C-alpha cells in the first residue's frame, strides 16, 4: 500500500481556493480581505486569507489567496486553485499553472492579452473602472463583483455589505457603482 500513497491521494474537496493576482497598486490584498469578510458576514464558512509579504510587495507582482471551507481549514495556503483572477499578463503567466483542472479563470482583458486556454471569463475591469466609474482604483471591486456573479461563492448582498464596510468615507457611491457594473457585466458573460 505504502508505495502507492501519493498516487491515490486527493486534494480535499471541501476547500474552495481563490487567488487574486495583479500588480502592486491594483489592490489585490484589499480585494481578498473584502472577499473574506463577505464570506464571513454571510455564513459560518471558514476563511483563511494570505499573501506574499516582502519588499517584492513594493511595486512588482502581488497575489492574495482566499481559502474557503465549511470545515476546519488545516492548511492555510492554496494547494490547487479553484479560481484565479489575473489582472495582469505577468500574474496570469505566473499563476495559471496553479489553477486546477476545470478551475475558474477570470482575467482583466484591459491588460491581459495572451491566455493559454479558451475556458475563461474575460472582462476589461480596468477599462470599466476608468470609463464607467471614473477611477481606476475600483477595478478590483468590479472584479470582486464579477467573481461573485460568476462563481456564486458569495451573494451579491454579502459582497456589497463587505465592500461598503471597507469603503473610505465619500467613496461609497463609486464602490456601489463598481459593484453594479461588475454584477451586470459578469451576468452577461455567465455561461
Amino acid at each position, binding site marked *: 500500500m505504502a508505495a502507492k500513497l501519493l498516487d491515490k*491521494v*486527493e486534494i*480535499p474537496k471541501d476547500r474552495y481556493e481563490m487567488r487574486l493576482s495583479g500588480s502592486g497598486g491594483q489592490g489585490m490584498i484589499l480585494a481578498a480581505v473584502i472577499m473574506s*469578510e463577505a464570506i464571513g458576514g454571510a455564513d459560518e464558512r471558514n476563511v483563511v486569507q494570505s499573501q*506574499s509579504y516582502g519588499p517584492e510587495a513594493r511595486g512588482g507582482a502581488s497575489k492574495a489567496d482566499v481559502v474557503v471551507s465549511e470545515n476546519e481549514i*488545516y492548511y492555510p495556503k492554496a494547494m490547487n486553485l479553484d479560481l484565479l483572477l489575473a489582472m495582469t499578463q505577468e500574474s496570469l503567466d505566473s499563476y495559471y499553472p496553479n489553477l486546477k483542472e476545470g478551475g475558474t479563470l477570470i482575467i482583466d482583458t484591459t491588460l491581459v492579452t495572451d491566455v493559454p486556454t479558451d475556458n475563461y471569463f474575460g472582462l476589461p475591469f480596468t477599462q470599466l473602472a476608468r470609463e464607467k466609474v471614473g477611477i481606476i482604483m475600483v477595478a478590483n471591486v468590479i472584479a470582486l463583483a464579477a467573481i461573485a456573479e460568476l462563481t456564486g461563492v458569495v451573494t451579491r448582498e454579502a459582497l456589497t455589505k463587505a465592500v461598503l464596510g471597507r469603503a473610505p468615507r465619500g467613496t461609497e457611491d463609486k464602490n456601489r457603482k463598481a459593484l453594479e457594473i461588475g454584477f451586470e457585466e459578469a451576468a452577461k458573460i455567465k455561461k
Partner: protein
Amino acid sequence: MPARERKLLQGNQACVHGAIYAGMRFFAGYPITPSTEVAEMSARLLPRIGGRFIQMEDEIGSIAAVVGASISGLKSMTATSGPGYSLMLENIGYAYMTETPCVIVNVQRGGPSTGLPTKVSQSDTMQARYGPHGDYCAIAVAPSTVADTVTETIRAFNLAERFRTPVTVLLDEVIAHSRELIYLPEEGELEIYNRVKPTASPEEFEAFALTPNGVSPMPSYGEGYRYNVTGLTHDTHGFTTNRVDEIPVKLEKLRHKIADYTDEIEKIRVEHMDDAEVAIIAYGSAARAALQATDIARKVGAKVGAVQLYSIWPFPDAKLKELCGRCKKVIVAELNMGQLITEIERIMPDKQITTLQRYDGEILTPLQVVKKIEEVL
C-alpha cells in the same frame, strides 16, 4: 442571544485581542517584521481601554519596560522576531530570576541573522528554551491558527501570572500574517488568571517566600510592600546572597515551581492517533500541513496520526511519550534544520524517528508530508 460578531484578523492582530482579553494593559515594543502588526494594533487599541503603549528605542529597552511595568502592576507584553528576541535574552533571564510575569511574542522568520525577514520559519524553537544564559526553565506556547492565537496568548498570560515567569508565544510568519475569520471570546467566557497578591502585612511580607507551590505572592508598587528586586542571586527577602546554602534554594524554587506543575502547562492536540502506526509531530504552521496531510492520507487508508504541540516548553516528555505509545514510527515535521527532533530523539529512543524539514522560507505542503508518510510506512 445576538449572533456573535466574526472578525477577520491576522494572527498578529488576534494576538493583541487575546492579550487585552487576558488583561494586558501595557505594551512596549520595537518594530520588526513579521511581528510589527502586534505593536501597531497595540498602539491603536490600548489607549481605547486606558492601557499604555510605548515604542521603545530598541528591543532591550522594550523587554526592560515590560518587566518594569509588570513589577509596577500592569500585565505586560512585547512582540518581536528572532533578531529582537536574541537581544531580549538578557532581560528575559532577568524576568525569570526576578519572577516577573510577562509575555514575549516571537514571530519566527527565517534565520540565522537577518535571514529572511518576510519568510516563515520555526528555527527559534531551541532558542526559546536555551537562549538566556544560566539555568533557565522556559515556558513557551505555540498557536497554529488565528483563533488559536487568541486563546494561546490568553493562556500565555495566565501561565505567566500563575507561575510568575516570562512566557514566550512562538508564532511564525504564516500565522502572523494570515487572516482568518474568528469569534473573539466574550467577557467571562474564558478564565483569566491574575497574580496572587500578598495577604500578609507589609511587615511580615517576604518577597520571595517559599510557598507550597513555589510561587510567592506579588504586590504592585504603591500597595505598601516595599521590597527589593534584583537579578543577583537572592534570598527569600530579595537580598543578594553568596551563601552556598541559599543559592540552590533560589535556583530550585525557580525550576520546581514550573517543572513540578507541567500538567498545568502542557497542551497537545491529537488526531487519528488511536490506531496510528505513524505519528507526525509538529507545531505551529507546520502542524497545519501535518493535520492536512494526515487527513488526506487517512482517506486513502494510511494509518497515520497527527500530534500537535501547543506547548513546546517545558517539553511534554511524559505526555508525548504516552500519546505516541503505540506507534513505532514518528515523523517530526518542522520548518528548520532539525530542532524539535533532538527532544523527540531524547525521549523516544525506542522509536524509529524521521525528520521532515523545510527551511527555504515556505511552509511544508501537505503533499510533502504525505510523501514522507509514504516513505516511512
